[in-house]
């Protein structure tokens, strides 16, 4: 992209949420703010190629969006829209305050409010904060456009009707609410990353996490999540084989890893770690060890196991127990890992990753038949197509 389209894309990335969040603060009307912002960008697409890019594109768009909001309100005749029009006019005569950055944070926290259903939090964040269109979000989540539009309408209605506050939570709620925001962003990222083809969602999640880090530089977990996403995303080109198969870390061609993203992730992680450590920071630290290994064999498992110990204290879940067992198996030999997995077996019954992890360690221990049996067990529990192909390929290798 060059010239006007590139300029519009850039200002959309940097300023969409600023424009929308400012209009929401003034009017209290979410749909109006989104529509007016979208109108402004459409007007830019039509006029900038003829008239040239304005000297201050973001300011031009903000003014145009505000004028569109006023036009839209004038064409409606209800009492409520009159009041909103007055509110906008009123805000024009006041001095612009220094709370613009706060507006964007307010928007993110409100979109991710725990009183909204999770699917609505994700949809609102992508629509209102990231500026994706309804058809784009619907396509990303494989639901009909009308379903996605309805979901957004209901979410905006609940914000207004239930009195969900438009604000950054007070200190006593901040930690809990911030982890809710980060969980939504990570879900968006994983949706894009797991599906492989929907890289735009992964990009949106990274961009959103970057702005949370910029807006809340003292929160280590925001930086931890951004670093974790960047480390994972750096492997994007290496994750899928030429024939479309999902590759494990050990199978990936590390020459395809994106070294620019890895370097950025490392810098973000360093800054986050200087502020503190939480579950995302520690997961990012584990990802960093993998990113630093030139080959799978060179992986420094001595460093990874204690990080899993720390992670387990921060977030004691069976999945992390399992990953720790695998790491111990890689450090101390497959039998040590298998012994730990056996201890865990009860709490993880029926979980597809257990037989897959056992199979891998059994294979490393040279117990090919036991490994094959575990791969078959894993296949029986797995429904994801890419994962199934991966397991089937490992099994086929053992059966030759």
């Amino acid at each position, binding site marked *: 992209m060059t010239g006007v389209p590139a300029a519009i894309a850039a200002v959309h990335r940097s300023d969409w949420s600023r424009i929308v969040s400012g209009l929401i603060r003034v009017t209290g009307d979410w749909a109006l703010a989104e529509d007016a912002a979208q109108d402004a960008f459409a007007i830019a697409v039509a006029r900038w190629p003829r008239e040239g890019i304005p000297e201050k594109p973001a300011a031009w768009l903000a003014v145009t969006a505000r004028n569109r909001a006023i036009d839209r309100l004038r064409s409606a005749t209800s009492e409520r829209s009159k009041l909103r029009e007055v509110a906008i006019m009123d805000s024009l005569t006041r001095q612009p305050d220094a709370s613009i950055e706060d507006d964007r944070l307010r928007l993110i926290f409100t979109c991710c*409010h725990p*009183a909204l259903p999770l699917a609505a939090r994700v949809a609102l964040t992508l629509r209102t904060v990231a500026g994706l269109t309804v058809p784009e979000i619907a396509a990303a989540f494989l639901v009909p456009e009308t379903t996605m539009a309805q979901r957004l309408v209901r979410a905006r209605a609940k914000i207004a*009707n*239930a*009195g*969900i*506050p438009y604000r950054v*939570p007070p200190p006593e*709620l901040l930690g809990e609410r911030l982890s809710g925001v980060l969980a939504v962003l990570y879900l968006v990222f994983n949706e894009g990353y797991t599906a492989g083809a929907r890289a735009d969602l992964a990009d949106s999640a990274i961009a959103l996490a970057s702005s949370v880090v910029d807006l809340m530089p003292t929160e280590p977990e925001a930086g931890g999540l951004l670093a974790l996403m960047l480390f994972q995303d750096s492997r994007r080109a290496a994750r899928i084989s030429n024939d479309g198969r999902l590759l494990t870390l050990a199978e990936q061609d590390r020459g395809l890893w994106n070294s620019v993203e890895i370097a950025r992730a490392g810098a973000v992680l360093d800054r986050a770690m200087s502020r503190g450590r939480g579950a995302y920071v520690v997961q990012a630290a584990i990802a960093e060890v993998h990113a630093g290994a030139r080959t799978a064999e060179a992986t420094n498992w001595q460093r990874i196991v204690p990080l899993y110990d720390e992670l387990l204290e921060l977030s004691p879940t069976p999945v992390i127990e399992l990953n720790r067992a695998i790491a111990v198996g890689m450090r101390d030999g497959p039998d040590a890992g298998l012994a730990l997995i056996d201890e865990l077996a009860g709490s993880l019954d029926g979980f597809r990753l257990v037989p897959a992890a056992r199979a891998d360690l059994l294979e490393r221990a040279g117990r090919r038949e036991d490994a094959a049996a575990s791969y078959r067990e894993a296949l029986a529990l797995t429904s994801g197509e890419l994962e199934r192909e991966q397991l089937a390929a490992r099994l086929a290798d053992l059966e030759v």
Partner: protein
Amino acid sequence: MEYMLFIATDSNPDDSSEPEPDIEEWVAEGERRGIRKQGDRLRRPSDATTVRVRRGEVLLTDGPFTESKEWIAGYDLLECKDLDEAIDYASRHPQARGGSIEIRPVWPFEE
């Protein structure tokens, strides 16, 4: 904004050993802060009568309008600045542990 709290029973109460908050303190706090306008317990669903009018005829049934394992055991009417304030106050009601509390915004007629 006005919120109605429906204080409901729940078949899965909290099983932690944390002491339950005291209802009298909860009421006193709400009145002190001016966020609780009124509220009370309700008699059991077996004492309920449901009224319907169909084709001009008043029909009565014994019991609540809907049969379910959980029932509404009380209500409180709040005046809060936003949902977060209502959630915070409701979460400290003893029945938030023993049952569940539904927070419904009141929908004023003039809207």
